């Protein structure tokens, strides 16, 4: 007789989940260690994650809230599949498992979008001011109007005007601009393009500019804000048009990070990546079990315990996300 009154498979799933929970616990504690050890300004969730697909900026935490909601709902549909299994309701199990799988795909897709956004960074990037301090920028980025070539390159001819939306998309112009800004190829209002040609560029002025200091320098300290829009815009343009290399950082990768200390990006990639991998494998396992359900394997066995076991794994993934959400986005 068993003191736990549960099957071997379920018990082993629980033991696996305990060990996996310790892994995630260890990772989150390591993140906490770094956060407690650093004296740098840590990124703030609602400043870092404030974009929505198709809508742009200015929606603090809304997208990640939506992701969290999707994952919770897919956990609910999973528990409904398990309940249907207990009544031997094959149709119900199939219906709810399909819903769970769709929710899982939505979550993985959302995470891909979130990563892509995090890697590409904001339109403004993080700039290094003259005194050595670093600042992130809030505001509205002025649209590009055109590039006028003043010195020919491999591709563009002298005197040619590249109009936004006609000869080049706004996105391509942005790409040229950011690339040149990082490389120190913008001097005032002339820019060196990819093909080596030099151009003057016309763009609308940046509006509602505000600088928030994220790293101490000679004049400015962490937490200082330059809220005078005109002054902030002038300071920003001066840095971008300085013609110096690496005065601006766009987005985050394993070498540099627009949002804050480098470790933040590394933990973000590792922990949300490891979680995303769990979600992905959960979706695959759910699909496999769904196929077995459809073929009637569970029904002829007389019980749907396999659905319950994958359900445990799926809920665990949701459980981990609850903690990731709190420690990466909220606090």
């Amino acid at each position, binding site marked *: 007789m*068993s*003191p*736990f*009154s*549960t*099957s*071997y*498979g379920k*018990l082993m799933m*629980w033991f696996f989940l*305990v060990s996996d*929970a*310790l892994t995630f*616990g260890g990772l989150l*504690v*390591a993140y*906490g*260690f*770094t*956060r*407690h*050890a*650093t*004296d*740098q300004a840590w990124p703030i*969730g*609602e400043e870092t994650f404030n974009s929505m697909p198709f809508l742009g900026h200015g929606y*603090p*935490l*809304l997208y990640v*809230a939506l992701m*969290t*909601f999707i994952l*919770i*709902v897919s*956990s*609910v549909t999973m*528990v*409904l599949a398990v*309940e249907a299994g*207990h*009544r031997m309701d094959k149709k119900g199990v199939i219906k709810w498992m399909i819903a769970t799988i769709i929710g899982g795909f939505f979550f993985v897709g959302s995470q891909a979008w979130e990563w892509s956004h995090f890697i590409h960074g904001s339109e403004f990037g993080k700039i290094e001011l003259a005194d050595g301090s670093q600042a992130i920028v809030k505001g509205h980025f002025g649209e590009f109007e055109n590039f006028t070539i003043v010195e020919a390159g491999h591709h563009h001819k002298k005197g040619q005007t590249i109009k936004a939306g006609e000869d080049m998309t706004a996105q391509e112009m942005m790409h040229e601009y950011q690339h040149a800004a990082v490389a120190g190829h913008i001097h005032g209002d002339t820019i060196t393009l990819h093909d080596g040609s030099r151009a003057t560029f016309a763009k609308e002025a940046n509006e509602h500019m505000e600088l928030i200091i994220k790293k101490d320098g000679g004049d400015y300290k962490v937490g200082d804000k330059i809220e005078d829009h005109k002054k902030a815009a002038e300071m920003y343009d001066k840095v971008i048009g300085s013609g110096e290399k690496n005065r601006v950082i766009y987005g985050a990768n394993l070498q540099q990070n627009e949002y804050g*200390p*480098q470790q933040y990006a590394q933990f973000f990639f590792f922990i949300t990546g490891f979680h995303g991998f769990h979600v992905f494998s959960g979706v695959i396992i759910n699909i496999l079990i769904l196929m077995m359900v459809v073929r009637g394997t569970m029904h002829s*066995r*007389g*019980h749907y*315990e396999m659905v319950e076991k994958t359900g*445990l794994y799926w*809920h*665990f993934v*949701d*459980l981990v996300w*609850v*903690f990731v*959400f*709190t420690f990466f*986005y*909220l*606090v």
Partner: protein
Amino acid sequence: MIRDDIYEYSLDAHHDEDTGKKMRAKIWKVTLLLTIITAVEVICGAVIKQSSDWWTVTKWFFIALTLVKAGFIVLSFMHLGDERKGLKYVILVPYFIFILYLIFIALWEGLAVGASWPATYAG
């Protein structure tokens, strides 16, 4: 093939339509609760700034809400609340002992490292 591992306990898990109705009602109730908690968290996160005097309270409020959410997921969705006492404690007790110790020791050490080598860690 004889499967002695599944016959004994797995068949006990069946229930009838009436019990199912009650269970589904409970599931939807928990769903509503988790949704409300998440919405409250996001609204607080967007409204209360980290520079505000209320931030410390808000932070602990977030952590408390997270634990409430986790509790509902584990006890209700994962049905750990319905399992035998022995199984429940075999899972929860060792985990809590170990993780609380780890949190205490690592965060305390983090503060000490930060104080001893300022500016060299996390640049």
